[in-house]
């Protein structure tokens, strides 16, 4: 009884959110998996078990591996590496001390406040692939600067189009990563740096051996945040490329399957796969963090 009195009120307090999350998160995830295993492959709902047929169809779908997945991998690699490099560099420069740091911090963070749809439309103009005398945007700037060699097809490029597609995403999120890294830099106690300097370490070695090791948890966190944004990317792609195979990623194909083809099982299968991939990324990280916190 006494034990109930100890944890009872607390449990009562969180129970509404437990119930809501159980229904609206885990219940719907379960429903989604059920749909992906059903024969709901037309407009009318139908829940007869069909096994992994929708997944098998996806596996043999000519756009799935050679376009959707390939596009997503390329986009993710360029986006994550690009954002980490740009964000880290901005944080490094700000950490070295600059006048008006608050101003720069705000300016670099602003792009994150713009929705992907809005920035996507602007980037669609910037990355206009029109040739010859119709050239506008970045290509026109390159031409004016006499750098015609740099003018290119951007997101319509046959092999590297998705790398161009990652540019707006890098622009939008590198400020956020900068803020994370800046907190990381600031989290390194000044005494440690001082001690290293006292021992005769050069400024380069102070960073190499004292500051950078402290940034590992931040880097990991940034990696995971960017990774799951990238895997779910939808709005940016639709704003720039529309619903076309040339820029298609899994989340867009999910929409096409559900709302255009009315193949709900296949759409749900894509949703399930995206969830699994994101879980593979996030769950080990959460487990690791919880464990290492317990140890402390």
């Amino acid at each position: 009884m006494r034990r109930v009195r100890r944890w009872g009120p607390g449990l009562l307090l969180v129970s509404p959110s437990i119930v809501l999350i159980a229904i609206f998160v885990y219940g719907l995830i379960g429903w989604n998996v059920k749909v992906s295993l059903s024969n709901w492959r037309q407009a009318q709902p139908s829940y007869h078990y069909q096994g992994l047929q929708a997944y098998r169809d996806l596996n043999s779908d000519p756009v799935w591996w050679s376009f959707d997945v390939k596009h997503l991998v390329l986009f993710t690699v360029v986006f994550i590496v690009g954002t980490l490099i740009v964000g880290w560099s901005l944080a490094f420069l700000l950490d070295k001390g600059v006048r008006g740091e608050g101003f720069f911090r705000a300016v670099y963070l602003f792009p994150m406040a713009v929705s992907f749809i809005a920035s996507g439309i602007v980037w669609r103009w910037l990355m206009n692939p029109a040739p010859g005398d119709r050239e506008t945007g970045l290509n026109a700037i390159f031409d004016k600067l006499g750098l015609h060699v740099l003018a290119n097809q951007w997101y319509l490029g046959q092999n590297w189009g998705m790398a161009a597609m990652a540019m707006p995403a890098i622009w939008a999120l590198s400020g956020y990563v900068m803020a994370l890294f800046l907190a990381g830099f600031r989290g390194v106690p000044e005494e440690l740096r001082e001690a290293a300097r006292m021992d005769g370490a050069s400024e380069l070695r102070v960073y190499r051996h004292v500051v950078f090791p402290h940034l590992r948890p931040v880097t990991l966190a940034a990696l995971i945040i960017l990774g799951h944004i990238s895997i779910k990317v939808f709005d940016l792609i639709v704003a720039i490329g529309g619903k076309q195979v040339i820029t298609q990623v899994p989340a867009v194909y999910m929409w096409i399957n559900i709302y255009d083809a009315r193949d709900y099982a296949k759409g749900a299968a894509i949703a399930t796969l995206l969830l699994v991939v994101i879980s593979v990324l996030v769950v080990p990280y959460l487990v690791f963090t919880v464990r290492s916190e317990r140890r402390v």
Partner: protein
Amino acid sequence: MSRLMRRLAVAAVLVSALAIPAAASPATPSSSSGTTASCQLQVFSWWTGGGEAAGLTKLINIWNANHKTCPFKNETVAGGAGSNAKAVLAQRLAAKNPPDSFQGHAGKELLDYIKAGQVLPIDSIYKENGFDKVMPKSLLSQITYKGHLYSVPVNIHRANVLWYNPKVLRQAGITKAPVTWAQFVADLKRIEAKLPNVTPLALGEEWTQKHLLETILISTLGPKGWNALWTKGGNWNSAKVSTAIARFDDLLQNYTNSDAASLTWQDAGKLVIDGKAAFNIMGDWQDGYFSGTTKGGNLAKKPGVAYKWTAVPGTTGVYDWLSDSFTLPKGAPHPAAAKQWLAFLGSSKAQDTFNPVKGSIPARQDANPKLYGPYLKWALTQWKTDTLVGSLTHGVVASNAWNASIDTAIGLFTQTHDKGAFQKALAAAHDKNAV
């Protein structure tokens, strides 16, 4: 330190994991529950811009003047060809919250709703108002399912129109618009040779490429061959389909703009008006865009001077049609008003008010030609004499699922240019979806 950092990092991961999907999920329009005491006619469409919106406004004004007790409630969702609207509609129908009437392309596209029991037959509206006597049989047969009519068509658009810039053609020394496919290709070659800065054929994003393929198939197979493709026994492996695919590929690879995938149909049409392209194959909404007022976002050009038109080469005498039509959903909150709305839409007053502004011809055959502009006058005479075939891209001949399979096949083909694989994919789409 590191503990705090880790906690912060975990919190950041969790918060953004929750916040980003919320920001990314599409905004659903405020579903208007019909709980208000007074009657409101909720009509769902994707007519939000240009002539479409202007035409709808005229209809709304007439409706509101005559139905003071049940005013019009305009529930539009923006997005070309209704791609976003259809998704919102699917959600509303699934949630058993249908509008009083919704827009759909007449033909197989509406079949999904009919088969799912989401719309009701409206034969009585046709009988009471005599619509079956003034609308062409081949149109009515496309909107009949198991002997019942399910929608009222408001307008007719034509998909197989070749638009061209007469000045550019003159500069290239072309005196007459092409009639056969061979003449068309010869003209394209000539433009390419004489005017290196002009794109012979302006093309837009993926769905406009499907639109182009559609007209090539009709041109190559003829109306009978085209209609046969959409039946159970349709043969997509035939040599004629191979010829059509080869023609399509030839246009894509040699005569179109390299940035097609980044252009809307308006962008592509504007290239013709600006003299940067010679030809464009698009539906006759292009006429609305070319000649409509600049206030409505159009180009306000003179038909017959700044641009001219003819049937797509090889399709003279064939009218590749599509039609916007309205339905009576099951569980509509105000069914009596909805029936009056449908009866109104089929009347010549509504059709002759809406269509000259929207830039289409009425589905009724007793239109008053004086109300229509030069292009539409031409279309009105053709509509009465031409062989009618239904459009693929605009929902007449194939279901949503079939269309989606063809979309994917075309998207793949424009990347790989593998003609054999493309034809196989089209045949597979037929075998999977033909009924």
